[in-house]
């Protein structure tokens, strides 16, 4: 293997990348945009859901309950209406996601110590939102209800008891339930898929298409030198982008980073080799740049997006899909990322993810090396 020849190919690739506006944008701007996009744009939290109210009681107590609803960040009591049809209409035309009806005998029954029900009409077209609304409203009402109980105890002469045992919920790993912390680490996998697979998939196909490959293979340069010369620049760029994205995640989006930086680099390097090998392999077998790029997107980007656990949790997928994710390298990489960022899992315990990733790395690298031959037909 000649270092001069390898370097010549690598140098040529770098110059070509720098001179091609499209690939430059993908390599420099796209990773940053993706991180910002997913950090800000995708917000799975629900806040300020519009609520319409029909208060048939109009008492002090009903007002209290409504104030609590309003005080909660999840609701925004937009309007008070005076009849059922109005409430119905508000849900029909989407002005309200939920309608609350307080019965006419609300305060009377409370006074008499009888149970009372508050009616909630929920827009179920998006069942995710609906479940959330139901959950939140139950929480608010329950809170109110416990307070009534306490008040009752107090005012009926009983001594003020210490508050009954209350469950204080503290969410682990994602204290504020902020989605960005959940999503952003996975963006690294996406970025690498694009750089590693998509861009690389074009490289061999392009030389065939333009006719430069024919002349290249008539020179003494070896297949391995061509492969390494083409992939090493993308590897360097990819690792650089990983570090940049990680820094944006940590310092801009305040995503916690609790694990080992070294493990981050090593696992990223492994995944990088995986996607590079895939991209190279696709470039060799595809007949044209167009075909190569489409295959690359299909095999690397889409699965990284949909099935790696980056955005949608794997445990909640149908079983069949869960099995499919086992053969996706991205799944293991995303899993490592989340554990390093959010949990700070010690490296030794990451073997369930790192070993499969290493296997993929080896297999695909060998596959790519053997795929490319210096010959026509």
């Amino acid at each position, binding site marked *: 293997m*000649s270092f*001069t*020849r390898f*370097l*010549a190919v690598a*140098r*040529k690739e770098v*110059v*070509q990348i720098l*001179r*091609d506006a499209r690939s430059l944008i993908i390599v420099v701007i796209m990773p940053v945009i993706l991180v910002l996009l997913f950090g800000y744009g995708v917000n799975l939290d629900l806040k300020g859901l519009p609520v319409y109210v029909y208060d048939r009681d109009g008492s002090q107590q009903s007002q209290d309950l409504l104030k609590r609803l309003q005080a909660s960040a999840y609701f925004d009591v937009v309007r008070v209406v005076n009849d059922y049809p109005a409430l119905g209409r508000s849900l029909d035309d989407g002005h309200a996601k939920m309608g609350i009806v307080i019965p006419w005998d609300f305060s009377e029954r409370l006074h008499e110590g009888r149970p009372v029900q508050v009616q909630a009409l929920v827009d179920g077209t998006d069942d995710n939102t609906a479940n959330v609304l139901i959950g939140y409203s139950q929480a608010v009402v329950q809170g109110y209800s416990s307070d009534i109980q306490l008040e009752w105890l107090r005012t009926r002469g009983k001594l003020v008891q210490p508050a009954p045992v209350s469950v204080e919920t503290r969410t682990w790993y994602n204290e504020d339930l902020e989605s960005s912390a959940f999503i952003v680490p996975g963006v690294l996998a996406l970025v690498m898929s694009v750089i590693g697979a998509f861009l690389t998939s074009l490289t061999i196909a392009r030389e065939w298409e*333009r*006719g*430069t490959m*024919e*002349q*290249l*293979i*008539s*020179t*003494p*340069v*070896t297949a391995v030198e061509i492969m390494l010369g083409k992939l090493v620049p993308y590897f360097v760029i990819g690792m650089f982008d990983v570090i940049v994205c990680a820094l944006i995640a940590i310092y801009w989006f305040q995503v916690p980073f609790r694990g080992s930086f070294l493990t981050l680099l090593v696992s990223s390097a492994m995944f990088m080799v995986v996607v590079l090998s895939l991209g190279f392999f696709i470039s060799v077998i595809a007949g044209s740049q167009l075909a190569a790029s489409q295959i690359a997107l299909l095999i690397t980007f889409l699965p990284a997006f949909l099935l790696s656990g980056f955005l949608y949790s794997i445990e909640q997928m149908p079983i069949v899909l869960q099995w499919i994710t086992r053969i996706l390298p991205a799944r293991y990489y995303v899993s490592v990322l989340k554990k390093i960022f959010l949990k700070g899992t010690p490296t030794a315990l990451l073997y369930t993810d790192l070993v499969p990733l290493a296997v993929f790395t080896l297999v695909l690298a060998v596959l790519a090396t053997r795929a490319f031959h*210096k*010959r*026509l*037909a």
Partner: protein
Amino acid sequence: MTEQPQSAIIAEGLTKGFPGVRAVDHLSFDVSSGEIFGLVGPDGAGKTTTLRMLAGIMPPDAGVASVAGFNVAHDPEGAKHQLSYMPQRFGLYEDLTVDENIRFYADLFGVRKAEREERSTQLLQAAGMREFRKRLAGKLSGGMKQKLGLVCALIHRPKVILLDEPTTGVDPVSRRDFWRILYELASEGVAILTSTAYLDEAERCHRVALLHQGKLLFCDTPANLKAKLGKSVLSITSSKPRGLRDELEHAMGISSLVLTGDGLHVVVDDAARRIPEFEARLNSAHVPFDTIQQVTPTIEDLFVDAVSSGASVHA
């Protein structure tokens, strides 16, 4: 196995087929150092396939190909240090500058920096391209691209150069410049194998192999081939060429007749005999004409004669 062979390129029984077509059919020829050898024939004759096999980028189905002493079927990589290949389509990088392309190919052949600088200056000077060093290859004119291709092919002083239709689409002046460079190379001992579909270009080669549908029709110097034709060629000019043809179509002694823009191109058995015959005939039929004279046969005349008579004259 690097002892210097007698011939720089040897092809023996070279054969290559693709689905449905026999592209190269038992081709045998050889090229010596310092010789410019032309593979001549229309599209589809097998020229590109032959060159690709000799360049070591396409394995032959059968036959032996030896370039600079290396058997390219068994050891393609061995030969590549000694040869240069210029494919039909521009094979350099349009998004690299002239200098960057040269450096790339120099590195691939292991040419050291000092040698590369000296040689590239010399070559670019000869090609008249000194001021274009920093220009992107994609922005060069067609003729300049060809010259750049040649410069990159010569940077490592190869013993053998394989050129696939290097002058297609190039205007006659640039073509002449290109050939000047080839002649100089030949005088330095380089073996040059070039292919062309321009039959008249065959005249510029030292020796020529005419290919037709993958087979060799003949192989010799242009002068010998013409001498072996055994026929003469006449050129008759007239402002009404069609009248000439109608009258002479069935005359005796003609083996082929072609209507040109301003006359008739006729292959006859014996010029001395037929010229006065035709003159007499045309005059008595009142068909106007300007001159009848004997001209040298062209390679195209040879080609047509060989193909239509079904015979093949081997060297």
